[in-house]
């Protein structure tokens, strides 16, 4: 057994008092809101449990009793793809501003309170979701729930706090994108793949538009999307639904709905009218790369088992050291120093299937691109064996078992699924669905989705190279 009390005794009382003082003002109403009866999805230890609060907030619990710690996350069904026209970056900007205080917690204090309680916190934004999390000892869970619930409806923003944070975000963009030629190429590829759909806009935003964001823009976005019926609570770790339910009702159940859940309908069909090519030549680049991305359906909008088939396809084509691209281009002809493929299947709208190759010393971009084309053509011609598919499926299933080691990864898996149109059951069904994929399914997916007319080929090269 793990010794839980050891940790509790190590947390200084001083920290508890200061937290209690800060929070004293906001623990006023304790009206008991009802919630639905928890459902256990499966019989194995660690099976997820779900229930829903009366205000529409969904709750997922993923028990993992190995250590007396929990990962507490709140996910909002809103991301960069839900931003108003011309306000790119506001979803991510608001994510930063959520640390700038409420009526009861001063700016910047939330993270410090978490730290004083031996916890870690952070947040992240994608095109389809925004999520906030804390990792704490189990006895600190009520504290972080109270603070997370507080900032769902009581955020206070002033220009004095917001404007320096906008500079921070501009520095973040410089660091992640403008200082990195590979990120600049990715922006160009996304724009070409999604010429009308908001997935073509970078999550962090365009520099010009970030620089124009205002406090009012952030507040308007917050008021529209940060409401309990648009949020999901996920707690993974040393807890069960029965233990969490009273806390969830107390802290989150009393939050009023502030808006209806907005429909998330975005343009879905336009572009790319391929095959398209984009290039980024940069004097900072020393090593060229070729990649091609195909715009394909995601787990949410793909028919039948097409997404599962694309997972298998991407893995056996280029997801391991014995995959076709690696075996033939890196080990065999040695035209490439590295080569591979991937399927990013979790998205509310379309997803991407990609292949890439890095020319080996002495070979050109044209060499590896021709070799990639030849491999894809030969793959479609030759097909795959049952044995190849079985081995690939086993590999993916093992990764799913290994993922259970990390409560944070498990919470993320469910969070991503639930904010991109999936359900808890979809995650649980994934291994069985994967087992149903046949060689014919894989080849049908390859023929259907490795479609040049839906592709963008991106070249990164040193400036001056031809």
């Amino acid at each position, binding site marked *: 057994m793990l010794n839980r009390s050891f940790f509790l005794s190590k947390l200084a009382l001083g920290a508890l008092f200061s937290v209690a003082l800060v929070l004293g003002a906001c623990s006023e109403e304790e009206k008991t809101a009802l919630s639905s009866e928890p459902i256990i999805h499966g019989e194995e230890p660690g099976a997820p449990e779900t229930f829903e609060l009366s205000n529409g907030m969904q709750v997922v619990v993923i028990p993992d009793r*190995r250590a007396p710690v929990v990962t507490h996350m709140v996910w909002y069904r809103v991301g960069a793809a839900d931003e108003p026209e011309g306000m790119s970056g506001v979803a991510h900007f608001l994510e930063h501003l959520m640390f700038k205080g409420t009526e009861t917690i001063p700016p910047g204090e939330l993270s410090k309170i978490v730290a004083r309680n031996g916890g870690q916190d952070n*947040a992240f934004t994608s095109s389809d979701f925004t999520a906030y999390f804390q990792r704490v000892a189990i006895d600190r869970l009520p504290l972080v729930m109270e603070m997370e619930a507080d900032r769902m409806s009581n955020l206070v923003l002033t220009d004095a706090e917001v404007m320096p944070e906008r500079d921070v975000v501009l520095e973040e963009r410089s660091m992640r994108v403008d200082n990195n030629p590979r990120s600049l190429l990715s922006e160009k590829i996304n724009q070409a793949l999604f010429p009308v759909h908001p997935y073509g806009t970078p999550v962090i935003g365009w520099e010009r538009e970030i620089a124009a964001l205002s406090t009012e823009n952030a507040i308007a976005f917050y008021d529209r999307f940060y409401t309990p019926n648009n949020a999901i609570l996920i707690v993974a770790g040393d807890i069960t639904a029965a233990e969490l339910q009273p806390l969830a009702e107390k802290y989150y159940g009393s939050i009023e709905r502030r808006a209806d859940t907005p429909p998330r309908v975005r343009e879905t069909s336009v572009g790319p009218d391929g095959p398209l090519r984009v290039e980024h030549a940069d004097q900072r680049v020393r090593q060229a790369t070729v990649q091609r991305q195909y715009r394909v359906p995601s787990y949410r909008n793909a028919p039948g088992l097409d997404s599962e088939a694309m997972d298998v396809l991407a893995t056996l084509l280029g997801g391991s050291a014995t995959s076709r691209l690696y075996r033939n281009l890196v080990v065999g002809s040695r035209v490439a120093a590295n080569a591979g493929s991937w399927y990013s299947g979790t998205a509310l709208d379309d997803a991407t299937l990609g292949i890439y190759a890095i020319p080996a010393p002495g070979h050109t971009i044209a060499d590896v691109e021709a070799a990639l084309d030849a491999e894809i053509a030969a793959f479609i011609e030759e097909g795959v064996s049952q044995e190849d598919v079985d081995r690939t499926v086993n590999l993916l299933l093992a990764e799913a078992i290994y993922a259970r080691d990390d409560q944070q990864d498990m919470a993320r898996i469910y969070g991503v699924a639930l904010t991109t149109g999936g359900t808890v059951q979809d995650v649980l069904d994934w291994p069985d669905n994967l087992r149903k994929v046949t060689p014919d399914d894989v080849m049908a997916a390859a023929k259907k989705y490795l479609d040049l007319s839906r592709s963008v080929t991106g070249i990164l090269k040193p400036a001056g190279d031809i």
Partner: protein
Amino acid sequence: MFMQITKSLAVMGSVAIGTLTLGATPPAFAATEIQEVTSPGGITAWLVEEHSLPFVVIEAAWENGTLQDPEDKAGLTYMMAGLMNEGAGDLESQAFQGELERLAANLSFRASRDRLSLSFKTLTENREEAVELLRFALTEPRFDQGPIEQIRGQLKVAILRDAESPDKIAADAWYSTALADHPYTRPSKGTLDSIATLGRDDLIAHRERLFAKDNVNIAVVGDIGPEALSELLDDVFGGLSDATPLEEVALAEVNPEAQLQIIERNMPQSVVLFGHAGIAREDDDFIPAYVMNYILGGGGFSSRLMTEVREKRGLAYSVATYLYPLRHAALFIGQVATENERVSESLDVIRAEIARLAAEGVTEKELADAKTYLTGSYPLRFDTNDKIAGQLIAIQEADLGIDYITRRNGLIEAVTQDDIKRVAKRLLGPENLIVTVVGQPEGLEAN
């Protein structure tokens, strides 16, 4: 859906603060759980049994690394690590990788300056077969010519990519300025010229020299008991040589003079490294220094530098300082990235904060807050099998003792304001910072 999610998170790239990076110390609740297992053949490992998930993790780390590269063969250790799972015994590279995949086992080798290590993971149901592959890789790697050329090509690509990275350019330059011609300044991956000369004979000799029984630390976590482990240890590690002499590496002297070095690159934002000598892990003042660094720049949003540089002035997305107690050098290094026009201002703020801490120490409240974080977050380092294995290795490497986990928080609790004042005065030198800037900083002049 599983693997893909991990990828999309990795590229999502919009996190509010960087992960908190903590130094070289370990855990607390696995304490009662660690068993020391010694095999009949005399191989010792630390074991934490965890049977709720059907797999086991094995980590082994040798106390050597790329510093052991012969002077004219830079990159040899790194290259060797890349080749250790490229075929072994009677299985050529593709056959070997195919077997690993059939068994869904993960095996990788890594080399850093002070460490050569392997990470292995297998499902319980495939353990016997997968462990056999591990034994092969460790004791009978083939080093065939095909994989050698392939890995050499990948190394070249990695070297070229490093030359693109402002962080790596800054780090290489900083180490060269700080440590003169100490082996730590040699490129771990080698150079385009040096790796061109490395051959099969070099690799064979180097493997026999580096992988010995007398300088390895082993941690095993997961679905296995001590008896089975004992047998496994002899199977896997029994074939290694007992001991081999390693190259003596001198303790590095850190340049005591202030330096300002500018490496011009056409970028909107400058990457800045700053620092000077640090403190050794075995120094009695290491723990107070560690707490001090948390307050100065190690503590994410809670640090003084983050408050002054990011929160108050919006100068940078992140700023952080670290203590690096390397095996042969003790360093204190900080990093910030800020737009070219504001580099000078950022450095002024950072210098002023270092000077203030050196002169005044920390407040009672800062110390109390640091302690509650550092002690309270300790269990977060032990919530996965992988992390536990990593912590067990770190404790063994630093020779802290198998009971360290139970003692560690007490050591943090015992730190006083006076301790921090003493160590800050001893360690911090705002006037002696070695500063490397990569970018086009305005209003700064190199010396």
